């Protein structure tokens, strides 16, 4: 039969038709599987394809002072981000916008690092872009696939350099911090608090980021926003600091007249609330917003005056004469001395201890003094003998108990613990077990030697003196809601009360113009800390009114030489606080205080049989 015989042909035509029908049934079946059976799954995929979540950063909580003066707030700014299908597209858009942005190679490298970390999310290119740049980019938006410009809240500190150390600043969270989950809820690119209250209360301030879905095409070009905000961001809590900004500003204005470096703290001894805390030199935390300029950063880090250091809680200084009150309290507590008790050897300008001669700051000598008078005149010879009477071990023990060995627990990150030996083993490891003598006791007795305190630590002690109950208040910058108001009891109220009047006498004797400050009775103690690197550091810590103290103000001025000049600053601050900004101080206040420069620390020499400390 020929192949083209009609029968043969129609048989094959039938087979061919069956084949064609079968092929189309298979194709139809494949479409049925995708479109009918799998349609839900693919609908979701198609939706995920085009809807991208864009994070809406939450505005940080506002920080205000006790009178609701705004210290930290948010202002709108423009953020430029990129979202791309793949690396080639990402680089292409990044290159094309480089011309219109001021991206340098460092910033570009940072952008690429961020892209590598999370290529599927919008990648931050620039925070706080200037308006002109944003306008230029928006005009050419369709030629920059994947470009996202959005307004974001930007941190702003209206009085930056006045409260810089207190507030800290904000910065982008690092990869390590994300990995360690130190900041709950933070994501790549989140801004978190660094230092100060921003760091301490970050979890309360940060708020909850929102999310917005945008329709994007395959190249990442934003087409439109899908129905406005999907999840509105929630602003962080408002933080009310205990700070009195008016006083803080006054301190900041006053300080430069007395020195370049140092710190001032004003504190309410009744509650432990910090009213002012100033550290000089200062810096402007606004510089950190949107990334700190690398040149400025290295300048700050290299600077000898270390502006980033908060000297109020991070600076360690020999406590010097203000320490004498601590020793006096220890002696009273232990019963080793009474207020009118005298020492066997009167002050003739120095103290012979075995083969060594320890000087008093007043070379002509103070004569025979009671403890009250010794405090008032800051006589070193008296306190050498008192130190020996109390004994080294007891001094260390009592000092630790009062709180000179640990942090105060102020609500600021980075507080430095004072250097104060816990036991005499410290000296063994420092000098070797036979390498030191009781000279260390004499050094410690006058606030020198192996003892370095922070201003905040000394402030807590003077707040203890300013209180009636023998409790040392914990300093705080934000009123804690759930903290018990019971501060630790460290001394008997009677002994504390005894020390108050000689303190008042320190100021009373020296002053001729006290009465002019509206009958303000100020109690306080000067000090001059030996500084082997240059001019001495000056201290003054005072409180007022002496009868019922409402405020303790302490200051340390590096290279301030004399505590007496600093006393003038502290007095003015106290007056400004208690009498208000308009108080008339009459003539400029001049203090004539004993210039009780502490003698240099005695050199610690190897042990000899005579001088051996009983251990």
């Amino acid at each position, binding site marked *: 039969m020929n192949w083209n015989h009609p029968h043969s042909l129609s048989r094959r*035509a039938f087979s061919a038709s069956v084949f064609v029908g079968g092929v*189309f049934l298979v*194709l*139809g079946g494949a479409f049925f599987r995708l479109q009918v059976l799998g349609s839900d799954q693919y609908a979701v995929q*198609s939706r995920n394809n085009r809807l991208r979540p864009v994070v809406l950063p939450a505005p940080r909580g506002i920080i205000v002072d006790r009178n609701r003066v705004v210290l930290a707030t948010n202002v709108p700014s423009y953020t430029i981000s990129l979202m791309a299908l793949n690396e080639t597209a990402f680089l292409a858009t990044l290159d094309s916008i480089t011309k219109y942005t001021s991206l340098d190679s460092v910033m570009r490298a940072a952008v690429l690092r961020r892209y590598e970390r999370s290529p599927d999310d919008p990648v931050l290119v620039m925070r706080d872009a200037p308006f002109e740049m944003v306008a230029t980019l928006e005009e050419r938006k369709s030629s920059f696939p994947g470009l996202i410009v959005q307004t974001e809240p930007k941190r702003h500190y209206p009085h930056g350099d006045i409260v810089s150390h207190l507030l800290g600043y904000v910065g982008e969270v690092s990869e390590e911090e994300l990995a360690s989950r130190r900041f709950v809820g933070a994501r790549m690119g989140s801004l978190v608090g660094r230092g100060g209250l921003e760091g301490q209360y970050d979890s309360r301030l940060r708020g909850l980021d929102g999310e917005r879905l945008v329709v*994007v095409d395959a190249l990442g070009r934003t087409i439109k926003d899908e129905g406005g905000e999907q999840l509105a961001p929630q602003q962080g809590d408002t933080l009310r600091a205990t700070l009195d900004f008016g006083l803080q500003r006054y301190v900041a204005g006053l300080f430069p007249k007395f020195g370049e470096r140092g710190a001032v703290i004003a504190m309410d001894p009744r509650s432990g609330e910090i009213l002012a805390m100033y550290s000089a030199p200062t810096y402007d935390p606004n510089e950190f917003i949107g990334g700190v300029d690398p040149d400025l950063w290295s300048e700050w880090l290299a600077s000898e005056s270390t502006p980033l250091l908060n000297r109020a809680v991070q600076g360690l200084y020999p406590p010097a004469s203000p320490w004498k009150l601590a020793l006096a309290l220890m002696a009273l507590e232990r019963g080793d001395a009474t207020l009118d008790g005298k020492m066997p050897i009167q002050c003739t300008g120095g103290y012979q201890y075995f083969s060594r001669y320890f000087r008093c700051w007043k070379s002509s000598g103070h004569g025979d003094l009671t403890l009250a008078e010794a405090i008032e005149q800051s006589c070193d010879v008296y306190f050498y003998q008192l130190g020996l009477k109390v004994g080294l071990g007891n001094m260390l023990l009592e000092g630790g108990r009062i709180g000179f060995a640990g942090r105060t627990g102020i609500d600021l990150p980075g507080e430095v613990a004072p250097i104060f030996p816990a036991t005499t083993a410290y000296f063994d490891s420092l000098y070797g077990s036979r390498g030191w003598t009781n000279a260390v006791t004499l050094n410690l007795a006058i606030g020198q030697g192996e003892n370095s305190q922070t201003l905040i630590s000394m402030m807590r002690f003077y707040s203890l003196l300013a209180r009636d109950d023998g409790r040392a208040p914990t300093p705080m910058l934000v009123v804690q809601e759930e903290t018990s108001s019971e501060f630790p009891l460290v001394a008997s109220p009677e002994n504390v009360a005894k020390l108050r009047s000689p303190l008042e006498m320190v100021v009373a004797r020296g002053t001729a113009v006290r009465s002019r400050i509206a009958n303000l009775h100020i109690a306080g103690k000067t000090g001059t800390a030996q500084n082997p690197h240059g001019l001495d550091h000056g201290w003054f810590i005072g409180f007022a009114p002496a009868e019922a103290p409402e405020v303790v103000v302490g200051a340390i001025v590096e290279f301030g030489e004399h505590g007496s000049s600093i006393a003038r600053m502290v007095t003015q601050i106290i007056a400004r606080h208690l009498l208000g900004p308009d108080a008339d101080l009459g003539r400029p206040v001049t203090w004539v205080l004993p210039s009780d420069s502490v003698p240099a620390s005695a050199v610690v020499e190897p042990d000899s049989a005579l001088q051996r400390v009983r251990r």
Partner: protein
Amino acid sequence: MRRTGIDRPLLLAVAALILPGIATLYSAGQTDFPTIAAGIWQRQIIWIAIGVVGAAVIFRVPYRLLEWLTPFLYVASVALLLATLVVGTGAGTAAGTKSWIAIAGVRLGQPAELAKLATILMLARHLASRRHQPRSAFELLPSGIIVGIPLLLVGLQPDLGSALVFLGIFFSMLFWVGVSPWLLLLAASPIISLILAFSTGLWGAWIVLITVLLLWLRPYILEALVMWGMNVLMGVVALRLWMGLASYQQNRILSFLNPEIDPRATGWNVIQAKVAIGSGGLLGKGFLEGTQKRLAFLPSQHTDFVYPVLAEEFGFLGVVVSLFLFAMFFFVLIRVARHAVDTFSCVVVAGIAGLMLTHVVVNVGMSVRLMPVTGIPLPFYSYGGSFMVICLLCIGLTLRVAWDSRLGGYLEG
């Protein structure tokens, strides 16, 4: 039923494919950010107009003249393919290949499309001139050479998809002239061997099977040895051939096997096409409303992946209707071929059906992952000047065959 005149069902079927084709192409150009596909539908209409004129002209050409012209046409198209290999340029989505003939920068067309038609005519002339259908592998040899030359040249461009189409033409025409299915299987066996070579176990089983088949069919000894030898050879050279493929071809095959290997690059097309089709659901997202297409997720939405546009916007219902229309079209072609007045035109129409069917199956099949992505156009839907004109010329030829058979009274009933 009228005994003379134009074959109306064929005209109707073609119209029912071309009109939605234009609509789909128009929709493919409607994206949120304009692409090159935006105005392409207007150019497609111009190509259709040219094709219709061409079809009208070829409709007037007597088949005797066509049969006489065929060898010249075949030689000319092979020459063009050779020329393409030397001076060809790439274009659009296949910029890396040499498939276009251009003079002074103006692209005139893709010789591969013309070669398809010329090969159909040449093979039909060869088969129609014989008393019997080929009955052994040796008798298949001339047919193999006729198809093999353009297939090889197209494959060298490299254009894997078009090469595949030549195979479709080859097998459909041989089937139509009554070559035994076993012989066809034997002819296809080296290709199957090549594909199976990637799995040693499967390939081993295949060699055993082909050995048994040869013993059972009992062809000439030499023939059997040659076939068996080719099967073994294919298995051996498979790896070398694989290495010889361009990397994008390797990737296409790999991503056919598993598109998730690299979902952002090679597998992207397949995945996005599937998402477009699947998210269309039963009723579709509505004309012009396909999000995958609008937002440029769908690649080559005006050429290779035009069908997912239809599937996304009209859903399963639209797919069923359009597949039904395609099936009707093929049934008409089979009917025309069956009633042809002479052997030459009979085989030509079978070849045309084979050409079209291969295009439809490969193109639609790749969008649902039944076929690898080979990038061949869907008749009457995909944008492409050369192919559209060739398709319409084929329709012109088929209409002439139908006309002749009615005129010749060769029709039943």
